[in-house]
Each structure stands twice: as C-alpha cells, then as structure tokens.
C-alpha cells in the first residue's frame, strides 16, 4: 500500500516538475527534458505499483528486472537484433523503397497507369496486409528472407502512393516555367518534380520505418530460426521469461524510434526549405 | 473631456528578438475623440498595426499608458467596447453568413431572439440582406469583407478598429466599399480607427490622418482633414483633397528621411 502511495507521490512530483518546466522560457531543451521526466516517472510508478500490488513477475515484471535481464543477456539481444533488424528489416526496407520508388516513376510516365493503379494502390494500402505474413513465411522460408518479404509488401504501397502524389506536387506555374525552358522530362524530373516531391516521399519513408520493424517481428511469430526478436518475444512468454521479453520489446521500441528519428533527421536536412521544417 | 475615446501617452512597445530589441512603438501620444474617423498611415513596420493591436489588447505595451473609453484596453475588451476587422475576412467556412455574424453574439451570451434581430440589422447595414444562408465561399471577396465588417458591428460596440480591411481587394471593389464605409459611419456615428497604406484611401475616409514612421515606430504628424463630412467619390479630384494628399505624402517622406 505504501508503495502505491509512493507511486502517486512520484507521479505528482513528476507532473509538477513538468508543469514548472512548461512555464519556463521556451527552448528546445524543454520538450526533451519534459519527455524524459515523464518517461522516468512512468517507469518508477511501474516499479512501485508492480511491487506494491504484488503482481507476479511472470505477468508483468518490474523495470528493475527488465534492466537486469537487459544487462545479463546483451549477447542474445544483439544476435536477435542483427537477425531481425539488420538482416530482415533493413534489407526489406531497402528493397521495398527501391521497388516502390521505381514503380512510382514508371507509373508517373503514363496517365493511363496512374488512373489504373492508384485507386488499387489506395485500396491495398488500407488492407490488413499483416495477414499475409504466414503466407509469405510459407513461400520464402523460415529465415530472414521471408521477413524481408513481409517488410517489402507492407511498405510498398504507402511509399508508392506518397511518391506518386508527391510527383504531382509541383504547381502548374513552376511546370509551365520548365516548359518555357524547353526542359526534357528527365530535366524537369530532377530539377523540379523530385525536389518538390521530397516532403511526400519522406512522409512515406517515415510511415514505412515504423511499419517495417513491426512487420518483421510479426512474421517471426509464424516460423523462424531460433534467433530473432519476434522469436524471443513469442517463445520467451511461453517459458515465463517475461523480463527477457520486455527487454526485447525495449530494444524494438528503441530501434524503431531510432530508425524513425534517423529518417526524420535526413528529411530535415534534405527538405529544409519546406514550411513544415521551418520554425 | 468626455468626448475623448482613446488616449495614448508615451506609449512604448519593444519586442525582444534574437537580433536584439525591436522598438515597434516609441513615445506615441495620441488622442481620438468620439465620432472621429482616424486613419493610420505609414510604411510597413511603422507600428500602425501594432498600435491598433495595443488598443485591442492583443499586444501589451512595455511603457506608457493607453485608455480606451476611459478603461484599460483589457477592461475595454472585456466590456466588448470595440469591433475589430482584420486584413482578411476570416469568416468560418463551416458557418453561413448569418452564422458567422452570430458567432460573437453567441460568445457574448446574447439571447437567441435578439441575435436574429441584430444579424438582420447589420446585414441590412452592409447591404447583404438575402445572403444570410450562403456560405462564405459562395460570396465574392468584397462581400466577404462586408460580412466581416457586419460581424464587427453586430454587438453595437462604439469603436470600430480596422486593420487594412480592404488591402487584398481590387481598386474598384475598394472604392465601392470605401463609399459604403463612409455611409455606415455617418449612419452609426461610431469612432473608427483605420489602418491603411493607401494615401487616397486615408484622405478620402478620415477626419484625422496619423502619419507614422518606422524604426522606432512613432507618430510623425497628425493631419486634421478639412474635407466636409459629406464626401462623394469625385471629391478626390478636388484641390482640397489633392492638397491633403500632398501633405500626407510630405509627412511620410519626412519620416523616411530622418530614418535615412
């Protein structure tokens, strides 16, 4: 009981601190510090509530156990990370992006294809593609190839649609200007339309970056070698190694956030001129 | 004197920016009497809009005092002492014209029946009767701006503050609206503060023209108009008008010279 009260006190302190911070002079540090305080508050409350209410660690382990598992099984976590992220996700991401981008360029050249493929692409993008995971595991085998395949089909349509939309983003006046210069298709593509499309393309890439890791992990639930983040998560729960499972979830969350962050960072550098990137 | 509606003394406003302080207003003294039509004119950055915003309590001055109807701007705002017309019509696309005009009335908690009557009244005033149920985008730009003036008038504030309300409109529509604004002013006898960067517009409309200059924003000259209250459009070709316009231009130039 006292532990739960302590949790409430921690919450009050953390929140009070954040309110105080929000009244300070605004700056970049503010949101970062606030977010960290909020996260730490949650973690401490988790620890206190789990211990205070006697929740069994095989249901929800306290953070201290997770940190401990993290520290003692770095080799396992690293092997899983390489298998799932480096092999499955990155390969699939690269292939999916390239395929979607090239398809978008092909479609862009013809009004006919655009009219035919875009409605279908929009439709497919809304489908629960994750249901294809068991089928792709069946087709491409148990190793990372099938995970990469799942990643490819999951990210293909979001990127395709965004890129095609982006290629239409240059306004009419700018296109007319290119016409007055008698620019060729490729010149106008590289000098005008691709830069104008960049914000859209990056939007697609960002969506894809979160989808990719989830897709790969889900695919591992349907069959995998005995290494990988999805493998560890699904089998760990069965062995009641919940601390390891949560450590793996933390790795997934950090990797996913970092992946997203890197794409966002590249976007900021590449499309600094876009209104959304300006302060 | 009871007739003083707006009084500013030693008004200063400084914005802190990364490149150092910017003096938007410095030592501005100004008195506006009831029923006056005052134009503020000057190059961009001279503080004319800022001054209007201070009156409306949208900016807080860093020095000096300002009174609106004998109250602080904040109290005046709370008492809804003025209507404010922005540069763009700013009508809500999801409300009809009458819905847009009702908006401030709803916010002020005026009873429904009265709202309806007020809306009819002001729509008539700006010659928009019959357009109650149209959406803003179904109206021309000039009509939208008239609707936004109607919205500012709807709650019978004594003061009307207008920040370049016709700046985005073409010359012909503008002339027309100017004429109607004068007519409205004559009918309602409101005190009007009007920001513009057009010399003919300022001269044509005002009883008093406040010429301002930038860096720091200050009043360089206050010109009392000698034009009669009744002003047909062709008054703009009269020698009196041209003389006033010349004085305003000179005033602006003077302000510019000591800047350089």
């Amino acid at each position, binding site marked *: 009981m006292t532990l739960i009260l302590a949790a409430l006190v921690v919450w009050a302190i953390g929140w009070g601190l954040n309110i105080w911070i929000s009244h300070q002079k605004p700056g970049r540090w503010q949101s970062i510090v606030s977010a960290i305080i909020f996260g730490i508050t949650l973690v401490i409350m988790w620890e206190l509530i789990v211990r205070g209410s006697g929740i*069994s*660690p*095989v*249901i929800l382990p306290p953070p201290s156990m997770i940190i401990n598992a993290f520290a003692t099984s770095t080799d396992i976590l690293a092997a899983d990370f390489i298998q799932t992220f480096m092999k499955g996700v990155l390969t699939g991401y690269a292939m999916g992006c390239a395929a979607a981008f090239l398809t978008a360029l092909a479609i862009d050249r013809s009004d006919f294809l655009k009219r035919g493929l875009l409605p279908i692409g929009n439709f497919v993008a809304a489908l629960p593609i994750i249901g294809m995971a*068991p089928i792709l*595991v*069946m087709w491409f*085998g*148990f190793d990372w190839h099938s995970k990469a395949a799942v990643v490819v089909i999951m990210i293909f349509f979001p990127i395709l649609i965004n890129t095609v939309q982006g290629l239409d983003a240059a306004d009419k006046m700018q296109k007319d200007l290119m016409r007055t210069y008698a620019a060729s298709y490729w010149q106008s593509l590289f000098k005008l339309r691709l830069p104008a499309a960049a914000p859209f393309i990056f939007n697609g890439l960002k969506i894809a970056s979160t989808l990719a890791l989830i897709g790969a992990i889900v695919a*591992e*639930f*349907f*069959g*995998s*070698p*005995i290494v990988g983040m999805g*493998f560890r998560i*699904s*089998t760990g*729960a*069965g*062995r*009641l*190694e919940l601390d390891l499972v949560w450590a793996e979830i933390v790795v997934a969350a950090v990797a996913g956030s970092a992946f997203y962050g890197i794409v966002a960072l590249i976007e900021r550098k590449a499309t600094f001129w876009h209104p959304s990137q300006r302060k | 004197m009871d007739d003083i509606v707006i009084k500013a003394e030693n008004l200063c406003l400084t914005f802190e920016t990364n490149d150092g302080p910017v003096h938007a207003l410095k030592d501005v003294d100004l008195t506006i009497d009831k029923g006056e039509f005052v134009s503020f004119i000057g190059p961009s950055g001279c503080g004319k809009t800022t001054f209007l915003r201070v009156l409306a309590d949208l900016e807080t001055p860093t020095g000096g005092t300002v009174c609106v109807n004998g109250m602080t701007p904040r109290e005046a705002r709370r008492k809804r002492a003025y209507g404010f017309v922005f540069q763009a019509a700013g009508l809500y696309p999801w409300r009809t014209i009458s819905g847009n005009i009702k908006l401030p009335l709803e916010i002020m908690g005026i009873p429904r029946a009265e709202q309806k009557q007020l809306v009819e009244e002001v729509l008539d005033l700006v010659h928009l009767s019959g357009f109650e149920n149209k959406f803003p985008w179904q109206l021309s730009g000039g009509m939208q701006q008239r609707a936004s003036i109607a919205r500012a008038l709807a709650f019978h504030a004594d003061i009307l503050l207008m920040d370049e309300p016709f700046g985005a409109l073409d010359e012909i529509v503008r002339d027309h609206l100017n004429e109607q604004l004068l007519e409205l002013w004559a009918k309602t006898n409101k005190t009007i503060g009007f920001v513009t960067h057009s010399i003919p517009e300022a001269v044509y409309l005002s009883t008093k023209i406040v010429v301002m200059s930038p860096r720091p924003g200050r009043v360089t000259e206050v010109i009392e108009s000698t034009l009669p209250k009744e002003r047909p459009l062709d008054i703009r070709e009269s020698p009196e008008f041209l003389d006033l316009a010349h004085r305003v231009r000179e005033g602006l130039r003077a302000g510019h010279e000591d800047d350089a």
Partner: protein
Amino acid sequence: MNIVKTGLLSGALALGGFAAHAADDVTLQLKWVTQAQFAGYYVALENGYYDDEGLNVEIKAGGPDVAPSQVIAGGGADVVVDWMPSALSAREKGLALVNIAQPFKSSGMMLTCRRDAGIETTADFAGETLGVWFYGNEFPFLSWMAHLGLSTDGGDDGVTVLKQGFNVDPILQGQAACVSTMTYNEYWQIIDAGLTPEELIVFKYQDQGVATLEDGLYVLEENLSDPEFVDRMTRFVRASMAGWKWAEENPDAAAAIVIEYDETGAQTIEHQTRMMGEIAKLTAGSNGTLDEADYQRTVDSLLAGGDDPVITAAPEGAFTHIITDAALN
C-alpha cells in the same frame, strides 16, 4: 441479435443455475485450441458430469500465444492443462505449479522425417534441419538432443533448429528434414497432404526413452492449503476422468461434441474422429493418477539437458496424489 439473445439467455441460465445449485465455479485453461486432445473435458461438460458434481465449469481454449502457466499466474484460471516440462520449468522460475492429475499416460510427441532426406536413424540427424515447436513444447526436444549429444546451434555435428509454425509446411516443402508432430494431429496432416507412411520415418519420444509427461492438470501450490479448493478439484478431477473414459469408449460421439464446442468452426469431423482414436491410445493407460515412475523419467530426462538443462535441480513437491486419491478411490 442472436448473439445478444444467446448471451443474455446463457447469462440468465448461469445466474439461475448458480442460484439453484449454488454450483462452484471452476475455470479450466486448455493448452491449445479446441480439439479432441481435450475431449474428456468437453464430454464431461456436455454430458453433465460437472453438473452432477455441483460444478459450474468454464473451459477456456488456448492458442499458440497462450501460455497456461501465465494465465493461472494471472488468476485467469483455477486449473490448467499443461505439459510437465513447461510446468516444471515454470516451477523453477518461481511459479509453484503442482500436478494434481495425469490423464495422459503416454507421450504422443514424435519427430517425423522424410526418408528421401536420407534419415533412417537418430544418427542421421547431424547436419540436418529439424522443425520444433516452441512456447514450452521445445523442452522435450532439447533434452532429447542433449541425450543424443547433438548441439542445437547449427553446424555439421549438430542440428539446425527451426521454429516451426503451427503446420507441417516445412517438411512438405523440403525446408526441414524432420518436423515435430503429434501422433494424433500433425502426422495426419502430412498424410493428408499426400505423403504416404512408407515415405516417412517417425521417431516417437516414447520409444526413444525420452518421453515426458504431456497433458496433465496443474494448480497453484498455495491453493492446495485451502480444503474447499481441494474438494472442488477432487470433484473436478472425478468428473473429468469420467469424461475421459466415456470419450475413450465413444470416440465418434466425443469427436462430435468437440466439434460443437469449437468456436472457430475450422475443425472437421473426420480429422477430430481420427484424432480421438489416437488420443484414446494415450489416455488408455491412466485412470488419472500420476505414475511416479513416469514422473521420475520426465525429471531425469529434463535434468540431463547437457550445458543448458531445462531444469537445474530435481523439483520438490511438484505433484500430489491427494486429489486423485480422494477422487478415484
């Protein structure tokens, strides 16, 4: 509409039933989806054996991501069906599960291999890829491999382990030389897919001397100090075993009952009837009482796990005869 109506009806019935008999609630968590593997419990429910004992039993089907031990730890069930290796492993992790009855005498687990992959004996496993289930089912396999002295990290002198999905695709498509199967289930999927028994070679864990005890009933140790709970479990086990014995004798009818309870509607009567026939062979040797020799063999097999044994020390108090003694004698 219909669902709402049925829900209300059954809710009213449950309430009414509770009021009339003041029946004791028991929640049973199964290890896997609704199928003939659990026929005894469904038969006891359908034929009213539980009602006769004054019990109001709710059977929760499991699935690939449901660990019965986790469910019981979370208070989601009073008693669970689990395999002994995973129960003992949970016990060592601090979740004190106790076996109260053992309806399955023999193990139905086996490794099924294609002859054309060049496998005739266990000695041929080295260098091959083998499909294994996880989620608690990998323990018997790991201890068998340790027994054979094969590492499971891949390489030429060890075996490459594949986390098998829930079907037999790897062997059909040649991705693995052998896959894990149950005598009553997956083996027949291979046969149904078109491979003949002659083309296959099976290694039963039972024959290899590494059999571990499968479907048993487990409860939390702390509950056993409560006489009321013990009484409730005694009645539950008695009724369940009656269900099992009826199912053994009436396999066709038992399979039909199972089909009725399958919420997903994916089971076929042909498959379930055949499964019931195979299940009957596994339950035949047991009246519900745990055979201590079987228990000892399971423990030994799990302890002999080489470098990374499933359990590190012989467990204490992992089973009890109190309930079966009271229920069956």
